[in-house]
């Protein structure tokens, strides 16, 4: 492996003189480890292009431009409609792919910068040689880092080499978005895949670093259950709210409370990924309010006394919102300083005094000073809470009615609402004292407040919805299993074979944000359906929270019903967004641990294995961000399909296969070299579904793989047929494409299916136990 030698002398006195602060870095020392190095250590943009082209031939982009213009340079705006090209020569297809690449670079850079800051902080506090200990069941500690860079990291310091590589590549990719660079849409798409691959390395760096060093669960299927929901917050205590995606402030706050025996004196709760990290670090203290769309909801209740901002996906107007409820804001990331004065080096008591007295609008305290953040947040919350009692409530019903009476019925609120919610009608009813229609909006409202911005009367519509829904949100009391981090090697040994043979019908990953077209309940409903059908369901980020926020008829959440193991019927919360790397990492681990493929710097072979054999599918039902785009693209390069919800269509291009084009669905038999038709497995790589029913049917279909045994295929077909019948009433009309031999047909459906097959003229064909899309792998197995 490649390691950098660094040593530092703080102070040396000798007869020759005195040395202070000497730090020496010596390039790289190549250190060998057990696996031979594969063909692509630290691949550059072009090195995996061949693999990308194979995927893109199967799944060519289908563009749905979000904008017909380009306005990125001073030549523009350029009209790219139809066959036109802009002043730089770019056409609309390439422009769409370029914007996707730009989004993925932003997403990857966000995780990457996060990882860099986190690793630096951990090194500063725990030393470069702190071991990467992920527990006694995880020996393949960093599948992405090993696969992509060829490095086997042993210490936190080893992660810096991987970071250096990813930073270099992301910068190169970003350069490709400049005017007058790449001009081919498919090469842009290859670069999109590259960005995604890099993103998964960056996410893995971040999550294994914090999991190894901090007291997070280490691949523990029995990670604790913690409270989630607005109703779980004890508003009689001072309340600190952390929001964003960073662990350092939470560490500072929890450590301070524990060191001072104040665990029960302050309520600490979080939103979005910071809430995952908060509860992974301090499950006995931390609570989760909810996913990202709960941030304004919570603030509008007036409950939080101190709001600790960090980075990523935070509303940029939170400081303004906090001001309305007289709460104090502490910004902690240099990426999001909110215009606050830098108090990083000030005395904590002075900062508290300045904040409480409102002499400063908020404070910036750099994340590296976690202890100080903790002290300031706790002290400020305790001092401020009694002064804010009057703010900790929503307006009265009379006030709501009076606001509603101001409505001009212009309908601009509806036009502004991303989900076209019937706000105008709800206000109409509210003006007469009936708040039920406003309460009905709660479930589907994503709390973006675009309606408020559009309202000519400045009606605080979200606050009205919150008041009308007070009874609903006070009952938001649920349980979520804390993010467990990686998947154990032993779990992979258990499930590797049944997944590759198809006997576990698939791994469904619910990931991504909370921009739902029809409310978050749909995610929980989908997850439950797959769990009942014995799929392995992995979850992360905001989706993991939404899944927790519904109870079944027995009054339990899915986390209380289903175990946290990575096995059939397991519900596996890996953690925050950066923990997504463990989901894709599990697929890589199957290739390594179960199939004994060399991992080291061997990307194309492993991706080929995953694509042709590991039945997995991601569902990012509320995907919103650029991070979600880059996370998805990392799955694509591994050949894992991703389904998004209706709003995901705004990612402006899909990657769709055409099942009827038989020539696209051939693989090599790795033993004989023969080209064999497999059917469209999996049929698409990126797909925006319109309804949850469509997404469920599509997901089970996209879990079929060329390597499925007849038993495995029969199990997968049982699910496909059953769900198709349940939602669409008939056998799927493409069923014959997935049946290779009569033995593939589920026994209970045999008669019906054979009749269908006869009608469409189906003929038996051979299976391919060792499929590959890479000619160079023929006879290698």
């Amino acid at each position, binding site marked *: 492996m490649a390691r950098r030698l660094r040593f530092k002398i703080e102070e040396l006195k000798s007869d020759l003189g005195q040395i202070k602060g000497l730090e020496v870095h010596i390039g790289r020392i190549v250190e060998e480890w057990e696996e031979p190095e594969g063909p692509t250590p630290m691949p550059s943009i072009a090195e995996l292009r061949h693999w990308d082209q194979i995927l893109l031939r199967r799944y060519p982009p289908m563009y749905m431009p979000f904008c017909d213009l380009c306005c990125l340079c001073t030549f523009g705006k350029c009209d790219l409609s139809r066959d036109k090209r802009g002043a730089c020569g770019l056409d609309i297809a390439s422009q769409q792919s370029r914007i996707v690449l730009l989004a993925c670079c932003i997403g990857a850079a966000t995780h990457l910068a996060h990882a860099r800051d986190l690793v630096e902080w951990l090194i500063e506090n725990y030393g470069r040689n702190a071991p990467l200990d992920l527990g006694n069941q995880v020996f393949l500690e960093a599948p992405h880092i090993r696969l992509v860079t060829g490095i086997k990291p042993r210490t936190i310091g080893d992660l810096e080499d991987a970071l250096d590589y990813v930073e270099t590549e992301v910068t190169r990719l970003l350069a490709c978005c400049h005017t007058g660079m790449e001009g081919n849409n498919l090469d842009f798409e290859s670069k999109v895949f590259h960005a995604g691959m890099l993103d998964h390395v960056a996410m893995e760096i971040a999550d294994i670093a914090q999991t190894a060093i901090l007291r997070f669960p280490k691949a523990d299927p029995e990670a604790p259950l913690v409270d989630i929901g607005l109703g779980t917050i004890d508003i009689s205590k001072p309340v600190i709210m952390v929001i964003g995606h960073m662990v350092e402030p939470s560490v500072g706050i929890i450590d301070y409370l524990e060191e001072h025996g104040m665990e029960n004196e302050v309520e600490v709760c979080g939103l979005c990924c910071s809430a995952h990290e908060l509860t992974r670090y301090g499950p006995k203290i931390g609570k989760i309010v909810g996913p990202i769309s709960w941030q304004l909801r919570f603030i509008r209740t007036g409950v939080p006394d101190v709001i600790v901002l960090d980075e990523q996906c935070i509303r940029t107007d939170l400081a303004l919102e906090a001001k309305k409820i007289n709460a104090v804001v502490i910004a902690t990331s240099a990426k999001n300083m909110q215009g606050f004065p830098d108090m990083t080096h000030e005395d904590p008591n002075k900062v508290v005094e300045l904040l409480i007295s409102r002499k400063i609008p908020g404070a910036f305290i750099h994340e590296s000073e976690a202890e100080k953040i903790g002290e300031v947040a706790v002290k400020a919350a305790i001092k401020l809470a009694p002064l804010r009692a009057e703010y900790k409530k929503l307006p009265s019903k009379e006030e709501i009615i009076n606001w509603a009476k101001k409505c001009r019925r212009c309908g601009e609120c509806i036009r502004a609402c991303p989900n076209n919610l019937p706000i105008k009608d709800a206000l109409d009813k509210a003006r007469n004292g009936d708040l039920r229609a406003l309460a009905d909006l709660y479930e589907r409202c994503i709390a973006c407040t675009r309606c408020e911005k559009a309202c000519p009367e400045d009606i605080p519509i979200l606050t009205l919805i919150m008041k009308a829904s007070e009874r609903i949100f006070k009952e938001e009391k649920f349980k979520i299993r804390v993010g467990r981090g990686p998947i154990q090697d032993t779990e992979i040994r258990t499930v590797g074979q049944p997944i590759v043979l198809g006997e576990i019908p698939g791994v469904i990953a619910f990931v991504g944000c909370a921009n739902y077209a029809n409310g978050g309940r749909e995610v929980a409903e989908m997850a439950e359906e797959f769990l009942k059908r014995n799929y392995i369901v992995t979850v992360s980020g905001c989706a993991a929270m939404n899944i927790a926020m519904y109870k079944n008829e027995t009054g339990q959440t899915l986390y209380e019903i289903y175990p946290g193991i990575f096995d059939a019927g397991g519900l596996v919360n890996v953690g925050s967004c950066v923990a997504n790397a463990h989901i894709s990492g599990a697929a890589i681990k199957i290739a390594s641990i179960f199939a004994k493929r060399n991992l080291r710097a061997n990307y194309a072979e492993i991706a080929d294995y995953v694509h042709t054999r590991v039945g997995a599918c991601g569902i990012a039902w509320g995907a919103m961000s650029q991070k979600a785009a880059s996370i998805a693209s990392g799955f694509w390069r591994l050949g894992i399909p991703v389904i998004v919800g209706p709003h995901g269509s705004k990612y402006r291009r899909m990657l769709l296969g055409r099942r009827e084009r038989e020539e696209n669905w051939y693989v090599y038999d790795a033993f004989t070299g023969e080209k064999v038709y497999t059917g469209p497995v999996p049929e698409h790589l990126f797909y925006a579904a*319109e309804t949850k029913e469509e997404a469920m049917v599509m997901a089970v279909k996209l879990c079929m793989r060329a390597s499925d045994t007849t038993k495995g295929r029969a199990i997968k077909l049982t699910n496909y047929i059953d769900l198709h019948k349940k939602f669409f009433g008939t056998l799927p009309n493409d069923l014959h494409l997935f049946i290779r031999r009569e033995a593939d047909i589920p026994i209970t459906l045999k008669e019906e299916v054979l009749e269908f097959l006869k009608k469409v003229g189906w003929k038996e064909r051979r299976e391919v136990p060792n499929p590959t899309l890479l000619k160079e792998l023929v006879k290698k197995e």
Partner: protein
Amino acid sequence: MMRGESTGQTAEIPGPIKAILLKEPKRVAAMLKGIGRLVIIVGDRIMEYENEKFKPIDFIVDLAKSVNAHINVTGPLITKFREKGYEKIYLMPAMETIDRLRDPEWKGFDGEGGYRMAVFIGFYYYYEWLMLNGLKHFAYKWLRTLSLDPLYQPNATFSLPSMDVDKWRDFMLEVLNHIRG
């Protein structure tokens, strides 16, 4: 901006090529009658238009029968459509449908040839906006599109103006009456 050209969502600013507004039911009827081979693509939101006097599924089936159109239902409503007994009803998800409509070689749901026009109704506004834009840029040489939803869809070749849903229901019934003559 012409009257009725306000888009269904505030920031959905149309591009340089915008839909032709069809403000009169008789023009819509003439279009549907005269265009030739057409498919009506029905999204899962269509039931939001239902009230006592307007049954969207019945309306679509009647419309399709009157102009000999294919109906492609993209979601679970297919089960309700099948109950109507019209033989030219198909099920294909929206994304897959758009992918095929942008293909000049595609022979339609019955394999007998491509469509001259695709008619859209019953989708999330933004979802339809994007699908129509895909076709506007990548299928314009062989395919025209018409949005029958009550919100102006600038990326269609032809769109109704934005209008109140009650007014829209009357408009739709009038279209059908004109077609039936």
